[in-house]
């Protein structure tokens, strides 16, 4: 366990029973300016999180004592800090359960440092929102949130009010995983929380309008199977 704060003042708890993975996580996060505290199992993680202030947790799904899903659940009982789970290919079901149990996002192993840091930063934005932007530019797309206007490569795109509301959520939470539930409750209201079919239809329309069919295919809205969508302009 290390103490003190990194240059950007954020402290990240990394939980994994593999010392090599912890070593790699420490290296990656420190070079991105974070301070890192580590734990090799869930009990230790709960202790560390309770003792010192921690801004976010990165948790492996497979832990020797309590698994990552339950650890996320237990942490959620008293903290709202972002939780990112590390999952392997083939652990999709566990991943979905962890996300339903309160985890914010996931990173698939093996991960690149850029991907991990991007997910972490996107998740941290939730707890300390930046001042409201009225104009967002991302991947050739320009969105005026105040005026409800959208341009792709300088050309205006006409969206319906529902499509615009979805786009607003996406650009305000760039890079973050938005679950079906979150999108449905925020755009349609809590009575529509389970109506994934409606959401899917609107997302399909939004994609068709955003992604220029004539030019090279651009993926603005990525599907996260069984979970939701992510706005990730490349």
């Amino acid at each position, binding site marked *: 366990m290390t103490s003190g704060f990194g240059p950007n003042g954020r402290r990240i708890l990394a939980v994994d029973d593999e010392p090599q993975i912890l070593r790699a996580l420490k290296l990656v996060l420190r070079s991105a300016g974070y301070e890192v505290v580590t734990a090799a199992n869930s009990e230790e993680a709960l202790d560390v999180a309770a003792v010192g202030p921690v801004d976010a947790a990165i948790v492996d799904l497979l832990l020797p004592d309590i698994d990552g899903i339950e650890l996320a659940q237990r942490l959620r009982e008293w903290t709202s800090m972002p939780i990112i789970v590390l999952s392997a*290919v083939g652990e999709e079901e566990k991943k979905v359960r962890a996300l339903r149990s309160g985890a914010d996002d996931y990173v698939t192993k093996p991960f690149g440092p850029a991907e991990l840091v991007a997910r972490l930063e996107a998740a941290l934005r939730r707890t300390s929102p930046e001042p409201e932007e009225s104009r967002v530019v991302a991947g050739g797309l320009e969105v005026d949130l105040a005026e409800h206007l959208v341009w792709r490569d300088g050309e205006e795109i006409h969206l319906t009010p529902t499509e615009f509301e979805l786009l607003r959520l996406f650009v305000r939470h760039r890079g973050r995983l938005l679950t079906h539930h979150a999108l449905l409750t925020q755009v349609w209201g809590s009575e529509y929380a389970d109506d994934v079919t409606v959401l899917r239809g609107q997302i399909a329309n939004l994609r068709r309008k955003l992604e220029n069919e004539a030019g090279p295919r651009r993926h603005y809205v990525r599907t996260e199977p069984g979970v939701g969508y992510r706005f990730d302009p490349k």
Partner: protein
Amino acid sequence: MLGIATSVLSAAAFNFFFLPPVGTFRIAATSDWVALGAFLVVAVATSSVSELARRRAVEAQNRRAEADLTAAMAQLLLARAGVEDALALIGRHLAVTLGLPWASISLGDMEGDPRRHVIALNSDHRRVGTLVVPAHLPADVLSRLRERVVPALSVVVQVALEREQLVAETVETEGLRRSEAIKTAVLRAVSHDLRSPVTAMVAAGAAVRAPEVTRVERDELGRLVVEEGTRLARLINDLLDLSKIEAETAAPRLAECSLEEVIDAALAAQPRDARFRVRIDPNLTLVGADFVQVERALANLLENATRYSDGEPVTIRARPVGDRAIIRVIDRGPGVSEAERERIFEPFYRSAGQAVDAHAGSGLGLAIAKGFVETNGGRIWVESNPGQGSTFVVELRVTGTTR
């Protein structure tokens, strides 16, 4: 008995109507006694012979019915996939032929009770099953069952059991042979495909620590470690997927999926410089499938097509045909010869003359695609002519729900 009674009655009638004094049962002449005696003897003899003939005829009919029954039993048992199903049918057939209210045959040992009578089926001094019939059957029906039906039934049941065991053994041997072939292929892969990235990573990791390494060289070595590590991870995932498919533990989590989203996710997994043309019929409804498995199947097909299309864009088309969705992945590569159209879906199969270089896949992509499509109740095949490219076709069931 009936024959003798009829004969006596006929003799009495003959005496009454024809022998003087007519109209009485008395006989006047001694010669008439002889005639009456002769009449009686002939009548008794005739009726006995005809009675015997009748009995023979019934018996012959029974034998024929029994022979037919035996043939039917043998046919049912040998034609049906499962012995138990066939036995149920034979029970009904037997009841109809013998005029019983019901009859059933079971493979185990069974106890009789006040309502059921059990007859053991033994063959080669071994109990092979039990014939169960209603209790209190007439003695002749029971003895007919015991003597004429049970021996044939016992033999037929034994043969069917032996046959079933043989079939099971053959299936098992076939499975073992297949998994043996896969094991050999996996071992071959382990010795080459797993070892070479590890060798590269260890060498690069050691080299990067040398003091005289320049910044450019360090970058190069770092990239090598990441590339080789990624390749290794990919191969491990493929091997895991394949072993799950082979062990039949890749149970799909079925849900309604939009093929548009599945195809989109499969496209997102491709390298950024790969080019695709996508055409999805707007009338396509949702499919009932495991999103992740179908996505992986399609991603593997896209990757395979890209590898052989030499920079030309790969076309993906999806459209509904009846209650099916048809997805076509079309490349302009060298194509697949007829002889290879089945074999390319085998794990680690490489077409003749295909070099194993760093850009080659794991050799498992198509096997995994086939496995995942089939676990989701779909079909996959390739249409191709050498020199004219290949089209991989995936067929999945649609649920009919619109997007």
